[in-house]
């Protein structure tokens, strides 16, 4: 499989990264190189193999459903590029 400039443009849109046509053109061969290389995994017989999701066997823990953190609104907002009235502020999304 190889990617076309249109596909790369679509991936950039999914990834929310603005890209010029020149950047797209430059990325197409780079991505195809990498994808061509990873496709050698096709040689490996993985029939009946469970995908590995947890590298060291362990059980996910449960904890009591209680509040353990919070009440630090101002600290959380301190790093925001824009905060208003105790909220993160973003460009208007509803007309």
């Amino acid at each position, binding site marked *: 499989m190889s990617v076309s400039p249109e596909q790369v443009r679509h991936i950039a849109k999914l990834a929310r*990264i*603005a890209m010029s046509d020149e950047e797209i053109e430059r*990325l197409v061969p780079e991505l195809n190189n990498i994808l061509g*290389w*990873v496709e050698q995994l096709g040689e490996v017989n993985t029939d009946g193999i469970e*995908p590995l999701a947890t590298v060291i066997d362990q059980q996910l823990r449960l904890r009591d459903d209680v509040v353990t953190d919070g009440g630090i609104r101002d600290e959380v907002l301190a790093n*925001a*590029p824009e905060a208003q009235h105790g909220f993160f502020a973003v460009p208007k999304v509803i007309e």
Partner: protein
Amino acid sequence: MVELTSLTIAGLREGFRSGEFSAREIAEAFNTAVAAARALNAYTVETPEDALAAADAADKARGSAELGPLAGIPLGIKDLFATQGVDTTSGSRILKGFKPPYESTVSANLRKAGAGMLGKLNMDEFAMGSSNETSAYGAVISPWRRKGSNVGLTPGGSSGGSAAAVAAGIAPGATGTDTGGSIRQPAAFAGISGIKPTYGRCSRWGIVAFASSLDQAGPMAKSVRDCAILLEVMAGFDPKDSTSLNLPVPQWEAGLSSDLKGKRVGIPKEYRIDGVPAEINSLWDQGIEWLKDAGATPVEISLPHTKYALPTYYIIAPAEASSNLARYDGVRYGLRVEGVHTLDDMYSATRAAGFGAEVKRRIMIGTYVLSAGFYDAYFTKAQKVRALIKQDFRKAFEQCDVILTPTAPSAAFGIGETTDPLAMYLNDVFAVPASLAGLPAMSVPGGLDGQGLPLGLHLIGNELDEQTVLNAGLAIEERAGFSARPEKWWS
């Protein structure tokens, strides 16, 4: 008096405790060395007052029962550990000016043990790189140079600032993180030691996430003993990390022994690959002899899926990265590009301006392999091959107790010399399999190549068996007698 910046952590600890010198003298010596070594670009932020404050507390507590195990020791902290009130940018423009309101568990553990902080250490952007050239702060220059040459070399990456700082004597030890070799390859390039523990030993809480199923913190220092001292403090159960292992931390330092009688050292035949310089293979052979001399028995083992480890990694790591890095959206912290009208355009413009080329490349690969229609062909396939790689190691450890390989397929290369992304990825060919299997692994210096640059030997242990890795590392350290230090051209 001895030059304090040349001592190991064990040496500093002893001198401080015996009263030979004060913690303040240690901190001042390192602060001065840090300020004089800016040509290396190893630190992104210097925090001399932090190191002094911890030193004064240590001096006050000397002789009391409250003295922490790292009292009097100042350390460098890789820039992807969140440090309360101190810029934490992960080497990226997109986190410019981010001052965490919290402290990472690992750095908090070090502080609780009495350590001070000399500053934040430069790194490849979001730990994506093997040369420290992708940092928004510019490349770190290795303190090492080829014999008779002034060409700037890379310290490796992504923990390049950490490696350079320890090698140059501007930190006695440093934190690193390793996703696919980011502690071990730079340790090898810089002639120092570094260990990545079993996945889950060190809490990932407060570490800027790259690929969560692989990321592990670990120490980088001048000696194996120093690595054991630091790792004991850094490791430990943390309920704030769902993959943190709820196990007691072994006393690795007390357990150090270079007597390897009865231990079997696996030599994987698949690690004899084409294109590796003869010097690296002969150092590997020398390493086998050293371990035999320490009492171990070498056994040939097979890890049949080795050649698929890198392509597996370059699906899984970018996939997890594309998901983890979705949080950089210009809303909650870091950079925001203004002057665009819609929320979507703000996201896209901010991420375009904030991420460097390698990070964008990996987000794009990751987004693609996770996208509808390709998920099974790439991501699920890679997870299955990862299971086979893990199984290879499980079988191998039925025949051996520790595995010996070279750390990297080359010595340090020049800044700007490797421009092809795939060629750069190959740096981690020996390091990545252990990462995919979550195993403890360490690099120790073995010797110098013909150009006068350090080469490392790599030890991989079974799950939770850091002790055997450290002990084999110590056996090599004692026999290699590696004492070379870079010539001090930077100050």
